[in-house]
């Protein structure tokens, strides 16, 4: 869905159904209804503000940013959704940090034979604040990974999209950090990967190594942590 605020343009609201929406509509059982909406700012390049300052940068964004057309592919519809927060004085948002087995420089090393699993923990942290706002304490985390190579041990994916990206919705651990931040612990597990898959998806320099990326997103805070997983055929 796109929204245009140009007085010279007749298009005010451009909305299409995503594939998921069409699937729901095709059921024709009365269950298709809109219950909520999300706003996103995928188009906005906030480095413009860093370059030109708040006044000029804001004006440049408002006047020069093109508005995306409505996309039927839900995977690209909204990559960066906005969040609603009640506290108007909020000036700092929490971020996610990653710790766990086989982690070096934000890269998790796994193997296709012996070291097939790694337990990782993602923790909410905040800088220069005493506590995380209660509305931003994540109660659940969305973990997106390539379903061909990896899975979460003991979990069932909530959705597997057309690009074979599996999304797991995982609730947070019961432990809370000293600033009230939440954390989630999950175990990554390498799926059975054939030699031909290594041949196809291995890096150009090393066909025994597959590089894939995982995204962890806090449901409440919207904070995202992305990291790389390297799967070695011989480990």
């Amino acid at each position, binding site marked *: 869905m796109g929204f245009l605020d140009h007085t010279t343009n007749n298009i005010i609201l451009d909305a299409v159904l995503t594939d998921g929406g069409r699937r729901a509509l095709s059921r024709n059982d*009365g*269950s298709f*209804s809109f*219950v*909520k909406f999300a706003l996103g700012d995928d188009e906005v390049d906030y480095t413009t503000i860093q370059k030109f300052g708040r006044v000029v940068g804001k004006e440049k964004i408002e006047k020069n940013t093109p508005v995306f057309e409505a996309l039927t592919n839900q995977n690209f519809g909204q990559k960066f959704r906005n969040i*609603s*927060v*009640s*506290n*108007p*004085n909020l000036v700092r948002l929490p971020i996610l940090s990653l710790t766990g087995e086989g982690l070096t420089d934000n890269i998790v090393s796994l193997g296709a034979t012996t070291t097939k699993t790694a337990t990782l923990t993602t923790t909410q942290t905040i800088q220069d604040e005493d506590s995380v706002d*209660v*509305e931003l*304490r994540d*109660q*659940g985390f969305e973990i997106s990974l390539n379903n061909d190579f990896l899975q979460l041990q*003991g*979990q*069932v994916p*909530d959705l597997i999209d057309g690009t074979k990206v599996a999304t797991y*919705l995982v*609730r*947070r651990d019961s432990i*809370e950090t000293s600033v*009230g931040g939440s954390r989630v612990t999950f175990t990554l597990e390498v799926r059975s990967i054939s030699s031909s898959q290594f041949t196809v998806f291995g890096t150009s320099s090393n066909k025994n190594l597959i590089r894939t990326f995982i995204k962890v997103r806090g*449901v*409440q805070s919207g904070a995202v942590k992305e990291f790389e997983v390297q799967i070695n055929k011989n480990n």
Partner: protein
Amino acid sequence: MTVSYPSRPVVAVDTPEVRNFNFEFVYKFFTPDERVNEEGSVAPDILKKGSLNFDAGFLDKNNDIARYVKMSWTQVSLAGDFSIGTEFSANLSSRNEFIRVNQNKIYREEEFSNSGFTGMEFQDTGLDGKMYLLASGSLAKRLNSKNIQTARAINDQLEFLADSIDTNKVSLLDAAKYLAGEISSEDLPNQAIIDSLTDLGLSGAKFYDNDQIKERIDSTFEKLKRVKTRIRINNKILNTSLTTSATDPLGIFSDEIGPLLVKASEIQGEEISRSKPESIQESEFDIVVDPVYQRTSPKDTSFLPTRKHIGYIIDKFERAENGTLIKKSPIFIENSNTTSAFDIKIAYGSVYVYQIRAIYLLEFQTFSDDSEDMVVSAIMVSSAASPRLVAECVETVPPPPPQDVDIIWDSIEKAPVVMWNFPVNRQRDIKKFQVFRRSNINEPFFLHREFDFDDSVEPTDSLERVNINLTTRLKSPQNFWIDKSFKKDSSYIYTVCSVDAHGLTSNYGIQFEVKFDRFKNNIVKKLISNSGAPKPYPNMYLNADAFVDTIKDSNHTRMKIYFDPEYLSVIREGSKEEPFIGTKQKNTVYKMQFINVDFQQSEVLDIIINDLRTTKTKSLFKSSLDKISNFKAYIKK
């Protein structure tokens, strides 16, 4: 022959009072110590600001202040007062906090008096209640009187009918017919029945809601409790006057005067004991004042007494639970042009009483005690206080229901997990979440878990009684709940509510029905209701038709359609007829679809209502049902 001595002179000052003094309690957001913190959750640099720096929009826009009382009034006007000089010699702009610094030298208008007199002021804040009791008592008396008359009339009619039956010696059936004849006689025309069906007002009937009457009377008497009475009484007759008033059964201030009688008796006794009516004492005419400043008086006669309005003082009291008033630091407003003020030093749940006084600076010529020279002295006088306003600092806005309710399957716990988000709530006072569950829409919701993370220093008693075994106390909010009692064959409807720090509860959030799909090894969710259904009516926004739209019938070939509406016209009070029935004139067509389920064939018939009424008959129609023939329904195939 008795001789009376001349009365003592009465010295009085009359300064314009502040009018239209009003207040508004504004609750911005929750703070844990809101019930005990009277300093206001304000940044120190804002607290340092004087009243002058608060403009009307400052606090409304400011997000740092948790709660405040906003007061407003009409600026006092000095025009039209006694004819004294208007030029003022003193320049106060350079004197910061002039009123605050000299607050102990301010004379109240009502106490500005020479010796021998006592000034008093009465305001009965419970006067509206008293007047209501008096008025409702007389009203009830009138109603009782009217009811007795009506009962007598009915009894007379019944006796008359009973005598008629006895006289005619008829059977019960004949008696019934006789009574029917009596009833349909001219004493009770058919028109009365029609009138009763359409508008009981035409029959003289009126309905009143008891609560509405109380409300109306309350609002009528609301202004009465703002009435203040000021008197100044000679001390020699002070106790005698007050005793007379206190013992008057209809005296509206009798309960206020009662506690003053002991002191009044003392004053009167002392005054009489030292009274020497045969001589005139200096103190009876001189007034001793404590000036805020003095300056040299002009030598000629050019000086005229002068006055200037320089600001306001808002007196503040806190009403304790036993009703006594505890005096708080007053609010000083050092600007005569200001018409609003904010009190940020308030505790939530407390009751504060405010009254405002205008402050004037008077300059007049006096004799100096030291030199016996004529000097110009300035004194500050406050006007009579405005009627007291009672500000109850409580908010009554319920929180919105939780948002983004979702239910996922926990593969480890093998149970559904209900998850939700905080709603956008500027008051930020949500302190509890309640998870409800029911088996189907025909059952009520049962509370399954309450998460209580209230961090208030003094928590508010909840308006709901929740089983303590269902409550989980937490230090931090928890926005999910695992239903471990869920079996794979279960089917439940879940929803969530939020409760704020003041015990107010939201409506139900969105309702989902959850089943487990063994083939997909996951749950199947179905939307049952959007959020917003009130707690007593969980099915108010049910995502389904309330009625079946079809009529099933067999073995018939003909059908009669009757136009028989329950109401022919609906008239909104004080306005025109509502567009209630769709007619041909309104281009409305009712459609009926006949479906032969054997042959899967259907036919749609249009049913059109033609309104044949004229404007004249429409007005008659309000009170008459026999004009139904003016409607004509026909079927168009």
